[in-house]
């Protein structure tokens, strides 16, 4: 079917393969969960930890890992989280809350006697010190959508809940495939995704890598800054006007500092000639859906795809009248929660 690009097929195949790859323990849902232990997991630093049983006392040092833990029904096992873990709402009631910059309090973590510590990007030295106390540490640092999906599978095995993980993974992959299929033959609009505009004449924007850039790609857009060297870069307004985005996505509308509105963007000097400004295609989105490595990434992808390709994702009411493929998408929840009006004035 030509609706899929070769790259998308390759990506899906990779994701499926990667899920099965790391430990040789299949994620197959038929397997009774008790049989999976003792379980060895190799983390993203290449360190292998072996677990005799599913950990009951868990410390999570990243909101994404906290979110996955709750999604897998293991939220009650969290004995400490980092200060940013505020989703789902239950996560914000967990005490203690550990500051992770410049480093987590190793004393506090060791004192909690956890069965495992989940880390995204903490310093190797700190993590080694925790490991020396006999506490296993898993450093899970997914850098793109597929790796995030894989991390959900890994944590599912760790918590002894592979069925729940498999359900989430299957849902995320199916919805991802539905989005890419729906936009596969659509023209790819030029997209600027702005992450921070404390200095409006040189904002930080999404580069080609990482969640931000990859979601633009999957949602059927062309990132005008796909030539930046990393996930994020600071670019000059000259280059933005030159590259003339057709759609501007603001993930800095719900930031606690210098939040931007579409009106503020449109009023920037020299920006009035930009296609997105002239057509009013400036949309504020919920930043956490695009930056946090968790199950909500798929919500972010769907919301973004709807903004880039409104014609491919009709509103739910209209979906009854269109042909079967789109109705099937609707049933899977593609249009859920998202409508064409940009969410403005998000609560903080």
């Amino acid at each position, binding site marked *: 079917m030509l609706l899929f690009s070769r790259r998308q097929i390759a990506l899906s195949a990779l994701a499926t393969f990667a899920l099965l790859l790391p430990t040789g323990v299949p994620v197959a849902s038929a397997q009774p969960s008790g049989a999976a232990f003792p379980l060895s997991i190799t983390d993203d630093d290449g360190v292998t930890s072996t677990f005799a049983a599913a950990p009951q006392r868990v410390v999570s040092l990243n909101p994404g890992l906290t979110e996955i833990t709750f999604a897998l029904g293991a939220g009650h096992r969290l004995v400490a989280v980092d200060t940013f873990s505020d989703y789902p709402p239950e996560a914000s009631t967990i005490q203690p809350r550990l500051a992770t910059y*410049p480093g987590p309090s190793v004393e506090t973590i060791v004192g909690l006697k956890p069965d495992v510590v989940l880390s995204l990007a903490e310093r190797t030295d700190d993590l080694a010190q925790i490991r020396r106390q006999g506490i296993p540490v898993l450093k899970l640092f997914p850098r793109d959508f597929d790796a995030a999906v894989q991390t959900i599978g890994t944590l599912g095995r760790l918590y002894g809940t592979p069925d729940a993980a498999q359900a989430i993974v299957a849902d995320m992959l199916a919805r991802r495939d539905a989005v890419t299929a729906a936009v596969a033959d659509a023209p790819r609009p030029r997209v600027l995704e702005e992450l921070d505009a404390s200095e409006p004449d040189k904002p930080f924007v999404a580069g080609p890598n990482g969640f931000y850039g990859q979601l633009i790609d999957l949602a059927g857009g062309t990132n005008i800054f796909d030539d930046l060297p990393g996930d994020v870069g600071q670019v000059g307004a000259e280059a933005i006007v030159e590259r*003339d985005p057709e759609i501007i996505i603001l993930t800095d509308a719900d930031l606690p500092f*210098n939040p931007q509105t579409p009106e503020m963007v449109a009023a920037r000097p020299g920006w009035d000639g930009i296609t997105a400004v002239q057509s009013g295609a400036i949309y504020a989105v919920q930043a956490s859906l695009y930056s946090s490595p968790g199950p909500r990434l798929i919500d972010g992808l769907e919301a973004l795809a709807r903004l880039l390709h409104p014609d491919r994702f009709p509103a739910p009411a209209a979906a009854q009248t269109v042909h079967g493929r789109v109705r099937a998408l609707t049933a899977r929840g593609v249009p859920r929660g998202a409508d064409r009006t940009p969410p403005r004035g998000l609560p903080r």
Partner: protein
Amino acid sequence: MTDAPAKERSEAAGARNAVRPASVLVLAVLVLLLGCSLLFAAAFGAVQLRADDLLRMTVNHLLGPRFEPTWRPQDEAIFFSIRLPRVAGAATVGAALASAGVLFQGLLRNPLADPYALGVSGGAALGGALGFLLSVSFSFVGFSPVPVLAFGGGLAAMSLVYGLARSGGRAPTVTLLLAGFAVSAIMGYAVSFLLIMNDRLQINLPRVYGWLLGGISVTQWSQLAVALAMVGPAILGGWLLRHSLDALSLGEESAQQLGIAVESDKRLIIVLGSVLTGAAVALGGLIGFVGLFAPHVTRVVVGPRHGLLLPAAALVGAAFLVLADLLARALLPPTEIPVGILTAFVGGPFFLWLLRRERREYRL
């Protein structure tokens, strides 16, 4: 060496004579240098625009449509709304920092004095960090919260330093320097503490860090008008105090004997330096090195007399920062590099080379 002060004293006394032709020539060359760097910086950037298009575009802009556009509509926005304000901003900030450096080096008789010597860097950093922390967006004659608070913080710190150093109607130079260093350090570490304690700022850490390295940010001509209204009169005011500055370089007692009202002139110099530094901080954050080395480079070439040194250093600083900002914009397009990194990398080696080349002993 021993008779040098005497020679300088006689020069200082004779400086009330008319401006020498040599000075006019030096200033003319420097104005030409600044003009060239402005043209150069306007012609290049992250986006390549053709020089002849730029000329025709400018003619159309000034005299009404004379030429059929051979350029895209967005090229005009890039040139007139984005690039030119930025270039003009860099020149203003460079001139302000270099003049403030001349004033503070003359006042404090210290070769390490720069525009931030009296606590401005710490105060501006603290104000700017609070600007990142604010939950509101506002615009004050085109300035967003970060520059407004950085400006306020810098001036507040400088007033605090002057207040602390003053005792019995005098503000001794050494006390000023030490109080400036201490206040700057306290406020600088307060920024570090804020960054560590505040969850919101943690997320934004790379942004705050980038801002602290300095970068020209001019989005509206109104910002430039405000800055120029401060910088122009302040440089002129400094020039009117040139004889006091020359006399102060001999020491406060000698200056007193020459009939200079030392304390009131010192206060005036601090006020002028504060205005210059504040305007620079508002447009460019904390750009290091320009205010330290532009006065020195200029002094090596034109000598220590402030009547020539001050305007010459302002021109050198302006030309230098315009070129440094061009590199910040155009070196790694589309990425912007904090200009503070470039002022140190480009200006530092040049200054060291000049210092080595100058065989005779260098003095303030």
